[in-house]
C-alpha cells in the first residue's frame, strides 16, 4: 500500500501495478479509474461507452485476494484501486504475440467497429477465471454485461469458446 492520505491540493497518492509496471500518482479523489488509465497513464485501449456501468467497454482485470476479476473501470475511483494489480488490454500480448483470446477474436471475425472489443476480451478472460471451460450458454451469460452493437454476438461467442479451449490447452489462466 502507498502512504495514501490527502495531499496539499486535495489529491491523494496511489500506487498501482498496471500490466506489470508500478505507477505512483497523486490523483483527485473523484477521478474515475478509467480516466486514470486513459488520461494519466495513456492506456487508451480501455474505452468508455456509457455512464452507468451497462456497456462494459471499460472492463479490465483487477487482482483481489489472489484472484483476477473483471471489473468495470468506469465504476471505480482510481483511489479504490490503490495497492492493486491491474491488467488492461495492452498487457495481454507478449513479445508481439497475440494472446490466445485476442487471436481467437481475430480468427473468428468477432469484432467489427472494435470499440467494445478490449472490454469484451477482458470480460471473457475474467469469465474463464471462475469457469475455465464454459458452455456456450455460460459464455453468453458471462458477457451479458458487455454490449456490442455490431456483431450480433455470434462470432464473439465462437471466439470465446475457441479462446478458452486454447487457454486450457496452454494451461494458461491470464496473460
Amino acid at each position, binding site marked *: 500500500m502507498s502512504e495514501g492520505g490527502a495531499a496539499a491540493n486535495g489529491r491523494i497518492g496511489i500506487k498501482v501495478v498496471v500490466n506489470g509496471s508500478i505507477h505512483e500518482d497523486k490523483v483527485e479523489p473523484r477521478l474515475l479509474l478509467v480516466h486514470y488509465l486513459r488520461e494519466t497513464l495513456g492506456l487508451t*485501449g480501455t474505452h468508455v461507452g456509457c455512464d452507468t456501468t451497462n456497456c462494459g467497454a471499460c472492463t479490465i482485470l483487477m487482482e483481489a485476494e489472489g484472484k483476477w476479476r473483471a471489473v468495470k473501470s468506469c465504476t471505480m475511483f482510481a483511489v479504490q484501486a490503490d495497492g492493486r494489480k491491474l491488467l488492461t488490454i495492452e498487457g495481454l*500480448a507478449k513479445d508481439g504475440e497475440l494472446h490466445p483470446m485476442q487471436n481467437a477474436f481475430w480468427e473468428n471475425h468477432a469484432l467489427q467497429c472494435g470499440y467494445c472489443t478490449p472490454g469484451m476480451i477482458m470480460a471473457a478472460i475474467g469469465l474463464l477465471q471462475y469457469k475455465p471451460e464454459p458452455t456456450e450458454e455460460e459464455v453468453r451469460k458471462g458477457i451479458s454485461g458487455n454490449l456490442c*452493437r455490431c456483431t450480433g454476438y455470434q462470432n464473439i461467442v465462437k471466439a470465446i469458446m475457441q479462446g478458452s479451449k486454447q487457454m486450457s490447452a496452454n494451461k494458461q489462466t491470464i496473460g
Partner: protein
Amino acid sequence: MVSVVETRRQNQELTVGKPLKRAEDPRFVVGAARFVDDIKLQGTLYATFVRSPYPHARIKSIDVSKALKSSGVYLVLTARDLAGKIGEMPTVEGDKRAKPTRRHVLAFEESRYEGEAVAMVVAEDMYVAADAAELVEVEWEPLPSVTDPEKALNDQSPVAGLDRPDNVAYRYTFETPGFKDAFSAADTVIEARLVNQRVAPSPMETRSVLAVYEPGIDLLTVYISHQDPFAARDAIASILGRPKPSVRIISPDVGGAFGSKISIYPEDAAVSYAAVLLRRPVKWIESRRENLMTTTHGRGQIQLVKAAVKKDGRVLALDIRIIADSGAYTTDGSVYTPKITPEMASGNYDIRGIKAELVCALTNKVPQDAYRGAGRPEATFLIERMMNLIARELKIDPVELRLKNFVRKDMFPYKNASGRFTYDIGDYEGGLKKATKVVSYDRLREDQARALSQGRLIGVGVASYVEVCGFGPNYPQTASVTVTEDGKVIINSGTHPHGQGHHTPFAQVVSDELGVDVSDVYFNHGDTSSLPYGTVTAGSRSGPVGGSAVLLAARKIRKKMETVARKLLGVDGEIQFRDGKIIPLMSPEKTMTFREVAEACYNPSKLPQDMEPTLYEYAAYAPAANTFPAGTHVAVVEVDRETGSVRLLKYVAVDDIGRVLNPLVAEGQVHGGVVQGLGQALLEAVSYGQDGQLLTSTLSEYLLPTACEAPQMIWERTETYTASNLLGVKGVGETGAIASTPAVANAVEDALFLIGKHAESMPLTPEYTWSILKADPHHH
C-alpha cells in the same frame, strides 16, 4: 459494360470471394486503435454543454458570469456570442415540399427538445468543465410541447417550434394511375395501424470531436467520429464561413455509426469555433446520456394501411398514410429518410396500385435521421406486417401468400408500384423456398401444433424483403490507388469504414486486378486531405459503389503498368498480372516482377514519351442504376404464457446480395443487422413521458440486445447477377436490420394468433406481451 473483375488471370486463384480475416483487426484486439478520444494533443481543452431540461421553452436569459469566473475555465459561449460570427445549422435542401426550420448552433431564445444545447463551457479538463457548466444560470419559460406526432397534426396541438405553426415539416403524396381501378376490384379491404417506434442507433462509441486550429496556415483540422468526412468538411466550412480548403476532417477509427453520424451536429460546429477562437485544441466527447438524448433517432413512423385484396390472396393495391416523427427541426435526414418508405412499400410484390400520403410531423424531440436501412426497414415492416395480417384474415399460409404475390423471376427489370424504383433483377421465390427449406418450415408447423396441444406458444415469422442500395449517380464514390516504388499498394478510400471492414475486401479486389498479395495492400480512410472528394458511407453503398471506385483506380494503374512493361520488354500482346509478376503471355521468359515495373514508373527515363512519372490513379464512380438486395428471413420464437417473455429458438436468413467480396465480412454484417432489428422488435424504444421528458436516457432504460437475447443465426445465400456496378455487388450492410424486425414481430404475432390475439406495436417486451396474453379476449 464490363461487369466483374475479369478472370483473365487464368492461373492465379482469385481472392475475391474468400473469407480472409480482416487486416485491421490486430490494432483493435491489442487496444491500439485510434478513436477520437484516444488522440491526445498537448494543450487540449475540454468542452461541455449546458442543455435544456425542457422539451420546449423560451430562453429568457443566460448568466454565465459565475461559470466564467471559476478557475480553469477558458470560455463560455451562448447563442448571443455566436450571433454574426458563425452561421446556423443546415436545414432541408432541394425539395420545395419540405418546410425549412431555423436552428441555431446554440439555441437562441427558444429550445425545442430536451437536451438541446444552449451554452458551451470550455475548461482545462472535463471535470472542471462539468463543474462550471453547473454554474451557468438559465432563466427558462417552459412552453407547451408535443411529442406524439399524430397529436402534433391536430389543429389544437401546441407547436413544436414557433416558426412552423402547423407542425408540418414535409408532405409528400402520390397516386399511381391504376390505383382506383385496382382498389375497387378488391373482394375485401384489410386495414391496420402499425407503429414503428423511434429507436436510438446507439453506436458503442458516442459522438466525439477534437478541433485544432493552426493560425499560421489558417487550417482548422477536425478529428470527428463520422460517416461522411467530406460532407462534414463542407458543413463545418459553411457554418463557420470558411473556405472548404481551410477545413480538414480526419475521421479516424470510428466505433459504429448506423446512420447517426451522417450529419453535422451543433456541438461539432461550436467546438470547431472555440478551437479557432482560443487557438487551442478543444475536445468534446459525448456522454451516453447525451447520445440517447441528442444524437438523432431512427424509424418513428405510424403507418395506417389499407390493403385491397382478392379472396385468393392476391394483393391488388395499397392505400397508405404515414405519419413520420421528424422531431424538432426539418433536416435532410428527418424528411428524406421517411420519403423512401412509401416508395418501397410494395416490397417484393407485384402490387399494381398505390396511393400514399407521407406527413412528417414536427415534435419536441431530437431530429430523426437515418438508422441502418433508413426508410427501407420501415417499408419492409409495413408490407410484411400486412402480409401476416392478410394471411390470417384469409386463412392462407403466410409463405403461400407471399409466393402468390411475388414479382416473378421473368418480370425483371420490374418497375415497382410507386414507379419510383426499377428492380433490376432478383429471384424472390428462390430465396423464400430456400429459407423455408433450411428452417424446415413444414416440420415447424407440425411442431407448433404439437406444442400448442401441450399449452406452449411457438410462433413462426416470415419476412421477405427487397431494398434499394447504391444511390447513384448523385453521390459518386471515390478512391485512389498508389503503387510505391517498392511494389506495395495503397488504397485511399472515399468511403469510410466504421465496422464494415472495407480494408480486406477492397484489398482483395486490388489483389485480383494487379496480381499482388493481399497483405501488400495498405488502406487509408477518413482524411479529406488525401482525396479530392468522397461521399457518405450509407445505403450499403461501400461495396457496390466504393468498391467499384477502387476497381476503377486499380484498372488505371494496371493500364499504365502494362504500357510501361511493354516498352521495357519490347513486347506486344496480352500481359498477365499475377503472383507479384508481370508476364507477357507470348514471351513468358521476359517476365518482370511487379516491383520492377513499379520502380520503373518512377524513373522518367524508362517511361514512354509523354507519360507522367509516378504511379497514382484516382477514380470517381457514379453508377446510373441502384441495386436491389432481397431475401427472406424466418424467425421462430416461443412466447412464455406466464411471463410474456419471448425467446428466439431459431433464426434463418437467406439473402441475395449479389457477388460477395468476402463472405466472412458479409456474414458479420448480416449477424449484426439481424440483432439490431430484433432489438427493435423485442427491446428497444425511445420513450418520452406525457410531459415531454425523455424516459430512456441511460442504457438501463434503453435496452440494447445482449448476448443472451441474440439467437444463433444461420445464413444462406442465393445469387442473381446485377450489372448495376462493376463488381456485381448488391450491398449487405442493412439487409439484416431490414428483415429481422418484421420477421421477429411476425413470429410473436404468429404465436399470439394461436390464441386469437395480436400485437399492434413494438417492442414486444415481456410486460407488453404479458398484457396481451392476460387481456380478456371478449374485451379485446
